[in-house]
């Protein structure tokens, strides 16, 4: 499946609708990164939410930056606080 990548701020109700979820792939990630199915409906949604188109490399860099910041925050926690959760690790966008 082919994807497009963008950043957009979720404003809440009707940012994405049930109908849109049926029409194209959509997944949100840290840094307001959205992975959008590459079809007509996906293009219409990006336009609706005024998404800023990114390349996959750019989108991955935004996500990586968010994870790195979370890793720094995790490393600053006490041992007891760290025990409750695991250290965030980077992952690849589809």
């Amino acid at each position, binding site marked *: 499946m082919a994807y497009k990548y963008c950043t957009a701020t979720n404003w*809440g*109700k*009707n940012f994405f609708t*049930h109908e849109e*979820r049926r029409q194209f792939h959509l*997944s949100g990630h840290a840094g307001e990164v959205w992975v959008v199915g590459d079809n007509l409906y996906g293009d219409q949604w990006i336009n609706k939410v005024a998404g800023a188109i990114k390349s996959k490399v750019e989108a991955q860099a935004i996500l990586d930056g*968010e994870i790195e910041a*979370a890793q720094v925050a995790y490393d600053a926690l006490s041992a007891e606080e760290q025990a409750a959760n695991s250290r965030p690790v980077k992952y690849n966008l589809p």
Partner: protein
Amino acid sequence: MADYKGIQGFNIQSRDGDPDNPIVGDMYYDTASGQFKVVKAGGAPAGTWASGGSMNTARYATTGAGIQTAAFMAGGTTGPANPTANEQYNGSSWSEEGDINTARYEMANAGTTTAGLAFGGNAPPDNNYTESWNGSAWTEVNDLNTGRSYLGRAGTQTAALAIAGYNPGSTYIANTESFNGTSWSETGDLATATNTIMCGGITTSAFAAGGRAGPSVTAVSQTFDGSSWTTGNSINTARRYGGGDAVPGASTALIFGGTTNAASDNVASTEAFDGTSWTEVADLAAAKGGTVGGGGTNTSGLAFGGFNPSSTALATTEEWTANDYQIKTVTTS
């Protein structure tokens, strides 16, 4: 021999794909897949998640409760701070209501927007507080017998369950307590001591799924009949820290989100329970963990708050809407 038109009064329709609003009993030919299909009642709910209004205070680590058009989230944490905030959702937007008395996180909420309950949670050195909401203010009532955080919940203000959890003396708790509107009493233990478990239902028909039962997350699912827990079929994706719907009994449950390990392993996966087995249904738009707020039913649910894979608290809401039907392909053999 009668044909379809002779029985129904019309020919089988040809459609390009499945209909948006199927009617139970309909039969049609799907030209897109080249298959005859029929709409049957029951089965895993066929639904999707759409965005709902955003909370005023992004947070996680509290279960929330209520229904899709009247839910609430009390307490929790923003990450750096533990607010006393209590917000209510009306189906489109969140409003700030009366604060809980004691700020705490990894707590549980139960009941409704006019008759709520908030219990457990981490407020060092205590973790057994219970507060009752009458629609305008929170009042402290009798404490849990076994203080705990990272717990699950089910029920209403006057008939609630506190399920599993964690406290400094027990990393994984099997103990379940039942609240009768006045005080808590111990009832049947879970088969597996667990924390960060996903729960829902009522005191006579509840479910508990996933959680952490040792070094790893578990896929174990259990149901409660009012006195004892029974282990059933496992969930498909072992996870903890997710959300569970709040209203129905153990026969129609929904779990969503959670994490398989670290925050960056958050999942968007949603699973529906039909009383016997769990089925993967449509994903959340965004993976989220950190104890996701949950409300509603398995055909009209709500997921709110939680944290994203970079451990940032979320204010977002997603609304689950599904029809209680299944589209089956007609086969011959």
